[in-house]
């Protein structure tokens, strides 16, 4: 697994020129959208004004609201100043190119309530902010967690994955060894949390529209206590018309890096337990965030607008996946996750702003790992790296893919309560060989599985539900009969364990003698499961996925792919 730090200056290529062109195009479009939003905003403002005139009784509360808004503006201004102050500190860092979105405000950020608040229309920070925002990149600030137990772990677990992705210039991705282990970092040397997370929730709102359209945006929030990171990634946001595996083409928005340019879903991330992880997002086309679904950092790093902030310029998310302990059901983050934008979430996630995230376990001396294998969690079963795969049910309502960033937030009925998918997809494939390149949709057409009882470890199948509807997964043999060959081992990044004896180790279900064997798995939006496949004999099996209506439960679509067991 190699993850790149982005060096924006070292590649003068066609791609660079394209990027510049795209940027200009984006600016034009943003300007158009901004004007359109302005028109809409004015219209809705008129409506609101009309209503307000009839609200003499509301006047008192209105005044209170203004007072709070003023407080809030002052607070936000103080906050921004604080952020600027904090940002100045690590100024020795190399500078990044300025984002186009930082200067031209995309339409979405123009809020209908903005004009009722005099100062809100101008973002003071836009003019005074230092032109060079430091980008903590792997080359300068990232480091492996030194030669401790973690390093041992990475050699066994992470390095074994790398060969399968050979041919990529992975040298830049390898963390240097300059910084100390994160645990010893001195808080006093780092920008401290002089103020806590800016709580939008400590403010009050007059209406749902006010709340929806007035989320706190911060230009370049600062990462508190920035540590040396074992892995750093940089994500841009892109928008592209992409062709899906049924030939249909939709405008998709997603995250990209240099390996998976303008693709969908977002780049695959693999991080190891116990090591500090950085991901810097560079939003465009309006504010975005990244929520690391199932990961549990502090609120600033949780990526939710209304409990922290939405990001305009850039932000480096920081977290340290908790290390597992054998037999202990209270610890360990290893498992399958996904990340997604948490701004106008129904729309942005449907547009494609998500990607897979896998947390690999630390390696414990009592649970060594065979060549070509990994463990699913610290004391979990070994699986075969070669055939490890991921699939994600997803579906598209074409109507939604005509929408804009902030649709619905101003109180307009965008119909976002009506999700009526017409196209149904299985995303994913074998993790060791996700095709890199531009504008690729990672689609699943077949799977391989190792026959039980052979020399190879079993195949691990990870699934992320990227859907808004319930799904049923059914595994059958070649005749269509259900085949109970899947063993569920984890759910939502946590192993299934036997926890029946207080104070005693909790073995995995397999080790306790009751493996969770099944031919069926029912799950829904945002759930993840990890399963080992144990086909008893070589030959063809099938993985069938049904999409069900979220009210009636009726099956509305089905896709089936072959599993070839060898």
């Amino acid at each position, binding site marked *: 697994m190699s993850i790149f730090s982005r060096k924006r200056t070292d590649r003068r290529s066609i791609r660079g020129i394209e990027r510049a062109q795209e940027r200009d195009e984006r600016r034009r479009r943003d300007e158009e959208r901004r004007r359109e939003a302005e028109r809409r905003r004015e219209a809705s403002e008129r409506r609101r004004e009309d*209503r307000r005139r009839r*609200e003499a009784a*509301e006047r008192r509360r209105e005044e209170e609201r203004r007072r709070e808004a003023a407080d809030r503006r002052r607070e936000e201004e103080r906050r921004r100043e604080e952020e600027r102050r904090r940002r100045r500190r690590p100024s020795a860092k190399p500078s990044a190119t300025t984002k186009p979105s930082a200067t031209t405000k995309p339409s979405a950020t123009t809020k209908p309530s903005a004009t009722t608040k005099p100062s809100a229309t101008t973002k003071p920070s836009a003019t005074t902010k230092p032109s060079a925002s430091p980008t903590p990149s792997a080359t300068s600030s990232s480091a492996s967690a030194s030669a401790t137990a973690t390093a041992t772990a990475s050699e066994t677990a992470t390095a074994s994955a790398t060969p399968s992705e050979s041919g990529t210039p992975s040298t830049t991705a390898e963390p240097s060894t300059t910084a100390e282990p*994160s645990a010893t970092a001195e*808080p006093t040397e780092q920008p401290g*949390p002089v103020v*806590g997370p800016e709580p939008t*929730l400590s*403010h*009050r709102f007059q209406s*749902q529209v*006010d709340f929806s359209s007035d989320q706190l945006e911060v230009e370049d929030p600062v990462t*508190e206590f920035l540590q040396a990171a074992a892995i750093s990634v940089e994500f841009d946001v892109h928008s592209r018309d992409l062709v899906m595996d049924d030939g249909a083409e939709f405008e998709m928005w997603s995250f990209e890096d240099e390996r998976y340019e303008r693709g969908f879903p977002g780049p695959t991330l693999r991080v190891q337990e116990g090591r*500090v992880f950085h991901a810097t997002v560079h939003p465009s086309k309006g504010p975005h965030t990244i*929520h690391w*679904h199932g990961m*549990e*950092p*502090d609120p600033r790093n*949780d990526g*939710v607008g*209304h*409990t922290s902030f939405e990001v305009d310029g850039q932000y480096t998310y920081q*977290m*340290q996946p*908790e290390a597992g302990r054998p037999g202990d059901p209270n610890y360990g983050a290893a498992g399958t996750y996904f990340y997604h934008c948490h701004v106008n*979430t*129904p729309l942005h*996630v449907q547009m494609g702003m998500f990607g897979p995230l896998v947390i690999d376990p630390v390696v414990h001396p009592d649970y060594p790992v065979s060549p070509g294998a990994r463990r699913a969690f610290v004391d979990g079963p070994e699986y075969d790296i070669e055939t490890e795969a991921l699939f994600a049910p997803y579906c598209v309502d074409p109507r939604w893919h005509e929408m804009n960033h902030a*649709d*619905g937030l101003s*109180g307009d*009925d965008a*119909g*976002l*309560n*009506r999700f009526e998918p017409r196209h149904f997809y299985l995303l994913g494939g074998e993790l060791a060989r996700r095709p890199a390149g531009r504008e690729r949709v990672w689609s699943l057409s077949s799977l391989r599985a190792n026959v039980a009882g052979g020399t190879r470890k079993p195949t691990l199948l990870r699934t992320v539900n990227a859907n*808004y*509807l*319930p799904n*049923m*997964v059914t595994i059958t043999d070649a005749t269509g009969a259900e085949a109970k060959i899947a063993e569920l081992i984890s*759910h*939502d990044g946590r192993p299934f364990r036997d*926890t*029946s004896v*207080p104070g005693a180790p909790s073995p995995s*279900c397999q080790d*306790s003698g*009751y493996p*969770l*064997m099944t031919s*069926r798995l029912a799950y*829904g*939006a*945002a*759930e993840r499961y990890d399963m080992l496949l144990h086909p008893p004999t070589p030959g063809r099996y099938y993985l069938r996925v049904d999409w069900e209506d*979220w*009210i009636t*439960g009726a099956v509305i679509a089905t896709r089936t792919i072959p599993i070839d067991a060898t």
Partner: protein
Amino acid sequence: MAEQLPPEILARGDLLKLGAAAGLGFAALPLIQPSAPSQRAARTPIPLALAALPGVLDVYINEGYLKMVDDTLVYHRGFGSRPTDVDDPDPSLTMDPTVITATGDVVPSRTYPLDAAVPPRGTPEPLRADEANPGQYFIRRNYWASYFPQRTIIAELGSEIRLRIQNRLSKPHTLTVFGAGPDGGDLTTGAIAPDSVATLDFPCPPPGTYIFADPTNAPVERVLGLFGVLVVMDPEHQWDIAEDRATFERQWLWITHAVESRWASMEASGQTVNPATTRAVPRYFTLNGRSGFESLGITFDDAVNLATEEETLISGYPRQLDVRQFGEGAEAGTLRGGQLVRLVNPGIVFHQMHFHGNHVWTVRRNGVDWPRHEGYVDSDGHVVLQQWEDVVELETMDRKDIIIPIKRPPDAIDPVWFARTTDWVYPMHCHAEPSQTAAGGMYPGGLVAHWTLKGPNPGATP
């Protein structure tokens, strides 16, 4: 892309006075409202309130208009605590929380146990700081009462539940308590004719969570609001799900619902919705009757905010926890455990309850305790085993019991955790994302809440 409402449910001037009368502030509230219902006017007289009987809980099947999170009024029916009519500006469409004690008393109360201390703003205060674990606290065991939302009946094991239901509407209605019968079957009044009264007496079922609702023309009457929740507690084990089951610091009852305003307007105008031909397209999504910023307690109405914090917005102080056993802590009087959340879905949408900040530990579904060993996958493809989840499936009519640990978020780095001075607030929301909207947009205006990991406690010695 705006959803077109059929002409008969557009706002009508003759009903605008309703908004004003309801003290809702606006003369021009968007009002989803039918043309004048013809058969309705003929129905007189409206029956009077029932004379109270000791030990009997009176329920009134009422109709009226409820204000949605965007100030739209939507027609509802409901099980109320007092008789009100359709044009009442403050209709009683949900029952006030009531405790039925083992000794047979019917006590209006938002909190249970009745004699336990009520947690300030819903937050149980800790016993004291846990010196060995910086930033964490010892939790009081068997100490704090819990607040319950509207629509709740809390019955103590050993009681006889005696309901008297008056149907004040023009069509027959029924009250059915699902799964509360001696064999796990349903208990029902049968059809209650308009303007008449029925009684339903039954021995309290085993500890757990039960839905009661009107099954008429299912799910239409339920969608219109005719539902509630019965929570059964063992008075000998007031901080346990049941004897020998998970113990908790305090409990929360979360009732999810989806409002179908088109169905509501059809029924209000005297039509009967056929759910097979008029497909449900819910427009509002509620948790304990509130959506969006109201469900997050950030309105200008202090009373609403307080009630929301007490009933819905989970909060607590960080503590040590071991999911292998929720019970006595390291020292007497302390709890090694989290808080119980009863997730209940009388609505029609398949919800996916997602918690940020902490995984939750699921212990029970629909009255069946999940085992801790010898787990299995049932024929529906669901794992039956106590487990961690960050998304909890909540099918229609499902009840799930989960323990939220209220512990240090595991993936926060040490320096950030140790420097923490403020509350940390984490969202809870349904991940079937269309439920995050109100009136087709206004994210996050739907089924949302949050939970608070309380900051360092000034009262506790470090």
